[in-house]
């Protein structure tokens, strides 16, 4: 850019008149300024303010008291915090793996020609576009211990289980429901991204492999997967970020799965309203995620 500007003949002009490049640059800034302002106000300022708050004992009515690292030490020495971290890690690993694998499977099936494929392809998107609250209510009805179809089927019809049970309510099993719900809700997103890449794979690659005598499994391992490597890599990254911070999909379906975001919410906004501690939790959650992203991008994606 600069080279081009230098190459142009310089003519004397008043300070107000600009080169077309400068004018372009100004226009560029003017165009992105609203976006920068909004991001600055709504994202960067709250993050900085949040970090600032984490050093204080926040009072809603009076002044905040500076407490240094007291909040941070309190958090990392708290067993409940580590329990929440563990829950979050389990939730993220299983929900992301499930989402990507189901999305991959469905995408491969949907890449084949069959009658009414267009209709099926759009129906598959439904869980992703349906409002969380509506699907959560449906799931709660399904797993209701007294009236739910799931318990009716497993206990009365199939007799797999002896006694009626509350899968969502039981603190030991509720995380299973939360993970399965997340997979069901989000697999269409993975499916969409993978399918679009699948459709772009050159068919001649498969033909050549087939001539060389490669079976379906080998074609999948040696052609499909390498072609999908980057799309799956980005997919995992996105889903980890989203599921790590997930609040509503977990909180609405069951109150027993205390992932980090819910633990933060409970600490900050219920009971005695410990906003300073809540801010600290948010900062730590942000740091954990940041470290993961840097590691993942460098080592796994090798960007």
């Amino acid at each position, binding site marked *: 850019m600069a080279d081009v500007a230098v190459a142009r003949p310089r003519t004397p002009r008043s300070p107000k008149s600009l080169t077309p490049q400068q004018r372009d640059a100004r226009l560029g800034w003017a165009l992105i300024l609203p976006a920068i302002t909004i991001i600055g106000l709504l994202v960067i300022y709250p993050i900085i303010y949040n970090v600032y708050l984490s050093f204080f004992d926040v009072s809603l009515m009076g002044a905040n008291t500076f407490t240094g690292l007291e909040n941070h030490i309190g958090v990392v020495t708290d067993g409940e915090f580590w329990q929440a971290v563990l829950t979050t890690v389990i939730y993220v690993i299983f929900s992301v793996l499930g989402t990507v694998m189901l999305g991959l499977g469905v995408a491969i099936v949907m890449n084949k020609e069959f009658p009414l494929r267009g209709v099926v392809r759009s129906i598959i998107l439904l869980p992703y576009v349906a409002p969380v609250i509506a699907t959560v209510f449906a799931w709660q009805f399904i797993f209701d211990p007294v009236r739910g179809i799931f318990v009716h089927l497993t206990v009365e019809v199939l007799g797999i289980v002896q006694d009626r049970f*509350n899968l969502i309510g039981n603190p030991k099993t509720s995380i299973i429901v939360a993970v399965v719900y997340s997979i069901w809700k989000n697999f269409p997103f993975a499916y969409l991204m993978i399918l679009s890449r699948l459709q772009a794979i050159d068919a001649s690659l498969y033909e050549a492999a087939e001539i060389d005598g490669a079976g379906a499994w080998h074609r999948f391992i040696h052609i499909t997967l390498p072609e999908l490597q980057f799309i799956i890599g980005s997919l995992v990254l996105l889903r980890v970020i989203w599921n790590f911070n997930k609040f509503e999909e977990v909180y609405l379906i069951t109150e027993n799965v205390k992932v980090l975001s819910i633990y933060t919410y409970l600490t900050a906004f219920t009971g005695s309203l410990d906003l300073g501690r809540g801010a600290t939790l948010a900062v730590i959650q942000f740091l954990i995620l940041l470290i993961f992203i840097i590691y993942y991008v460098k080592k796994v994606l090798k960007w």
Partner: protein
Amino acid sequence: MLAIMLMFLIAGTVFATGEVEGASTGPVEIEFWTTLTESDRMATLQVLIDTFEILNPDISIELIPVPENDMASQMAAAAAAGNLPAFAELAAETAVALGVEGLLDVDATTDFINDLGKSRFYQGALELVGVGDGRNYYSVPYHGWIQGIWYRADWFAEAGLAAPDTWENILTAAKYFNQPANNQWGILIGTTAEAFTEQCFTQFARSNDAGLFDKDGNLIFNSPEMREAIAYYAELAKYTPPGPQTWRARDYYLEGKMAMFFYSTYIMDDLAIESVAAGSLTGENFEGLEGAFFDPELVNNTRLASIITHDQPAGYGVIDTLGFPKQTDPAATAAAQKFLQYLFTPNAYVTFLHMAPGGMNPVLPEVTDNPRFLNDPKGVYTHYGPEKLAEITGGLESIQTFGIVEGNRIDAASLIFAQQILPQMLYAITQEGADIDRAMAAAEAAMRDLMD
């Protein structure tokens, strides 16, 4: 139009019964702060005020809505500014708190209650707002809701079981009716970490004379009585539907799958009126839904055990009172007393209570015999009849809370309630299998933390 007709009706009947005297001394203007901020309730109150003003041209009342959560702070601010209203609607806890701070006219209140007749009130409602000496009162109870165990009287009769009003009877019936194989459950008590659980538990704890605080505010939570109540509650929880449960599971009862459930009198219209029961599921957002299953016989087969007895009888309810904040002008207090006198006349009282059938129950037992009271606009009470209504409102005879001990309001009890320490403890014990002693120790530590 309806309002005007109602006004004439009330005016006419009040004149006919001649219960309001016309004598007056001079023009007085007073403020009436109400927590009934909904527009239709304000309209009903205004009708009552207009009628009163016609009967008492020398008194004018300005109705001012104050959201319930703001009442205490607004009163404190008004007291500081020296312009307290002469008349205010106060939740019992708020009344006691303001009374302890000296914002309420105890003499005027006590005189009023004595004039009306102390023995005409449900004693539990009165005790809740008592100063603690058994003679003086902070505020005048006016209406309230009651919680208790609603149960299938027909099932109990068939099984030959006694009404669930003692620990033994409740546990026997819960065991008997709990048949998971038939998808039938014994009882609904709260086991989630939320307020409903504490409300259910309070009745058991208080019936065993277990409290959180003594009257000086010392924490006495970790007592043998409390432990006994918790152990009993955990035992009872075995006969609830699986998993943590809250008030929403009342639907199992409405569907005929449960024998007993804890609930307030707000359930009365759901039990009695099909459109209300349907509305609890549908509403305007889900017009297409057909609504809940409705059994028209259920209301006849249902009765309420409003008081649980073990060591002592314990009811649970929330009382709304009408109080006289202190005034510099005695005429203002006199005017407020006169207005309250009017509000206790049978027709005005019934008009007031009919704003929320089921939610607003009379604190005077005699009202349930009044034919006009039975004939509420929604048609709820006709399904119950005077005898059952007396049984239901009878819960007000011995209301017990953790928050008011012998005329002292214990602020920390509200904090503990807001922090859901008891429900969290009960959730841990009933759902996570926590050891009772350890859970109690943890709860006690949390309470002490909170009070520091």
